[in-house]
């Protein structure tokens, strides 16, 4: 019998056999790993036992970095978590370019450049980007254009849609591939919508918020969120955060951070920021229930399902600033669909995500009154005793070393400021604020292991002084010292000045630690462990590990019991044992890796991917390095 070749049989077999299986959860298809904001990977090749062997698989410099100093171009802030999907690593840069990269070699497949004026060194360019979104049709047909799409926003409110295979604009989206989101910026359009954060994907829709400029104009664009058709960019719905009768005089309360989605229940969750003026609310005494809240919308319609305000009449710029983490918690014989909303206050609000009701009690506590003429601070504020807040309720005490080095300056200054604990309102003489707008949990948010309901979050212990100034006083100061005078808040009776509570040498006046990493059991609300995290670096000198570091960017968790995180000032990326919080591995990268890392598995190998780009808030060091780590062969 002759051997015969049957090509159609092979074809049939190829069609019947499933594609090479990829373990679920080993892509990184969203800014937060998945749309539930979990930052979790089922990858388990890298374990606590072998993580010490982790080495660089590949490293890439994008060239998209500004070190500041030249012209008007500021230092870049590369906060873009890469995606791994469609067998490709995608990452966007602060110059609004997208790199498509081979996941195992780091070789660039194509680059898309959003040719915007943002590429020019002008005043509007703010040199920051936080990533891209990915959407694909349910059953992509090979070879067909724009079945898989990437979205990148720009500083002028333009949303670009790009074919994920070719890097070409998708002509059917917006105007030849670019949607002018700024066309909907019609009330107090003092600045264009900055599309810094990528949209979140819900079915065939994109849900999009925007960022703006704080503390410049009280009457700035009011917060809005858009539901868009993923294929065409057509607006399906719009949600406004500020009551209609206030929109002409009060701006923002926008959604500038990532959102999360519960696809099964058709809900999208919005972390809503604070309204303008950030530090004086005498012109907005009316109730604004969505300001500084977590708000749930029905994703198909944009209608409000529920909202929970996390700070009443916010006077501290305590924007809700990270995507809520969605997780199911077994409790009392039931499984509760929950969300965890980390905050700048350091409170972790654990809520039923279908109703907004708290799973752990929220207490309304009396708080200090304002002594600023015209201001009426809220009499109470929401307080979350469990889980234990990541930041203490009181000023942690004067750091003696800094006080001594500054000749007693810290003690003297502290005595002159107002400090009555959490939620002490800003004052004319200066108020000690802890945690301030850059403190607590930043936009990286937390990560969760959905199997064990272990929640991990990094947090900063920062103290700032908030001071209000009468308009004429501010004008005189501004004439004298220029922009260092503070923020004008045009349209408000008060300008504001906020600054870190440092001595004259730049040393923090408050006791360390300056940053921590904490782990919680969401089933009980118990704190499992908390350790100082990262190291402060000043003039190159590393301070003791027990001091920790201010952090920006979040952690990710793997099924094998590891936490990966950059975030700290010292340009090191770390692997931490999920059980104990002990650092098991660390590696130097080009700049603080303030972007949350991504984890993926490709051709049987697990990779950890960090964008090391820096952020002025934690360290002057900036960079353009994308670096992937893996185990040796």
């Amino acid at each position: 019998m002759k051997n015969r070749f049957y090509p159609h049989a092979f074809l049939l077999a190829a069609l019947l056999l499933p594609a090479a299986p990829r373990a679920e959860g080993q892509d990184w298809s969203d800014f937060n790993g998945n749309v539930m904001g979990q930052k979790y990977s089922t990858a388990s090749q890298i374990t606590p036992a072998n993580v010490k062997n982790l080495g660089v698989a590949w490293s890439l410099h994008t060239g998209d970095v500004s070190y500041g100093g030249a012209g008007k171009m500021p230092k870049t802030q590369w906060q873009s978590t890469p995606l791994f999907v469609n067998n490709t690593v995608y990452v966007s840069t602060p110059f609004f370019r997208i790199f498509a990269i081979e996941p195992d070699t780091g070789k660039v497949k194509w680059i898309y450049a959003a040719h915007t004026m943002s590429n020019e060194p002008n005043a509007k360019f703010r040199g920051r980007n936080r990533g891209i979104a990915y959407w694909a049709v349910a059953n992509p047909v090979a070879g067909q254009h724009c079945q898989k799409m990437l979205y990148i926003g720009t500083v002028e409110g333009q949303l670009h849609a790009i074919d994920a295979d070719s890097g070409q604009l998708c002509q059917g989206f917006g105007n030849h591939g670019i949607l002018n989101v700024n066309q909907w910026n019609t009330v107090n359009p003092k600045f264009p919508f900055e599309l810094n954060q990528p949209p979140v994907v819900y079915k065939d829709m994109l849900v999009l918020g925007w960022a703006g400029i704080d503390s410049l104009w009280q009457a700035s664009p009011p917060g809005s969120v858009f539901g868009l058709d993923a294929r065409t960019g057509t607006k399906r719905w719009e949600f406004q955060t500020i009551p209609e009768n206030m929109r002409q005089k009060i701006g923002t309360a926008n959604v500038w951070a990532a959102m999360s989605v519960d696809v099964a229940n058709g809900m999208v969750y919005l972390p809503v920021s604070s309204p303008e003026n950030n530090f004086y609310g005498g012109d907005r005494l009316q109730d604004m229930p969505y300001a500084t809240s977590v708000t749930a919308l029905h994703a198909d319609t944009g209608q409000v399902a529920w909202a929970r305000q996390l700070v009443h009449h916010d006077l501290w710029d305590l924007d809700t600033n990270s995507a809520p983490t969605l997780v199911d918690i077994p409790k009392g014989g039931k499984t509760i669909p929950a969300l965890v909303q980390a905050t700048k206050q350091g409170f972790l609000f654990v809520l039923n995500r279908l109703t907004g009701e708290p799973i752990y009690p929220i207490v309304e506590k009396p708080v200090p009154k304002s002594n600023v003429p015209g201001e009426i601070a809220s009499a109470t504020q929401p307080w979350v005793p469990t889980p234990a807040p990541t930041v203490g309720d009181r000023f942690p005490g004067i750091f003696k070393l800094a006080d001594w080095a500054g000749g007693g300056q810290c003690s003297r200054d502290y005595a002159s400021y107002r400090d009555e604990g959490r939620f002490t309102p800003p004052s004319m003489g200066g108020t000690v604020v802890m945690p301030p707008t850059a403190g607590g949990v930043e936009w990286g948010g937390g990560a969760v292991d959905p199997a064990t309901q272990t929640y991990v979050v990094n947090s900063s212990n920062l103290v700032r002084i908030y001071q209000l100034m009468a308009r004429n006083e501010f004008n005189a100061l501004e004439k004298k010292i220029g922009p260092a005078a503070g923020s004008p808040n045009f349209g408000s009776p008060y300008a504001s000045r906020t600054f870190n509570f440092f001595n004259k040498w730049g040393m923090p006046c408050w006791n360390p630690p300056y940053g921590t990493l904490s782990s919680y059991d969401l089933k009980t609300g118990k704190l499992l462990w908390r350790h100082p995290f990262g190291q402060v670096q000043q003039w190159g000198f590393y301070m003791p590990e027990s001091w920790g570091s201010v952090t920006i960017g979040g952690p990710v968790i793997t099924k094998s019991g590891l936490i990966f995180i950059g975030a700290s000032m010292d340009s090191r990326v770390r692997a931490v044992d999920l059980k104990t919080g002990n650092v098991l591995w660390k590696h130097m990268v080009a700049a603080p890796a303030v972007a949350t890392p991504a984890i993926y598995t490709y051709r049987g190998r697990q990779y950890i991917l960090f964008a090391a780009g820096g952020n002025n808030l934690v360290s002057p060091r900036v960079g353009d390095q994308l670096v992937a780590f893996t185990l040796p062969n």
Partner: protein
Amino acid sequence: MGSLSCGRGTWCIVLASITGLAIALYDYVTPETGIDQSGGVLLVIVAMGLMLCAALSVALLGSGLVAGILFFLILLDIVGTAIAGYFLESPMLMGAMVIAAIGWFRCLVVSAQRNWQ
């Protein structure tokens, strides 16, 4: 003031300061060290330069008040640089300062022995 002609001890300090200078220069220009372009490393570069000059001067002068003062300042330089190396997390710099310290003590012991005789 007795003689400081301590031969190998001084050259040990010269060698350590050259090594320290090379390490600090490398650290200053290499981003992977995490301490590049930093004021701390710049301080070490200056300190190593001064140590090198001081050690050579001691070797040439051999004795006298100036040599004695320089010899004492070298000790301060060694201690200060070692502390800087600790906080810069640069073990190689600290290693170089250990060599410098060995040289300094050898110099001290040899000089003391000669002066005693």
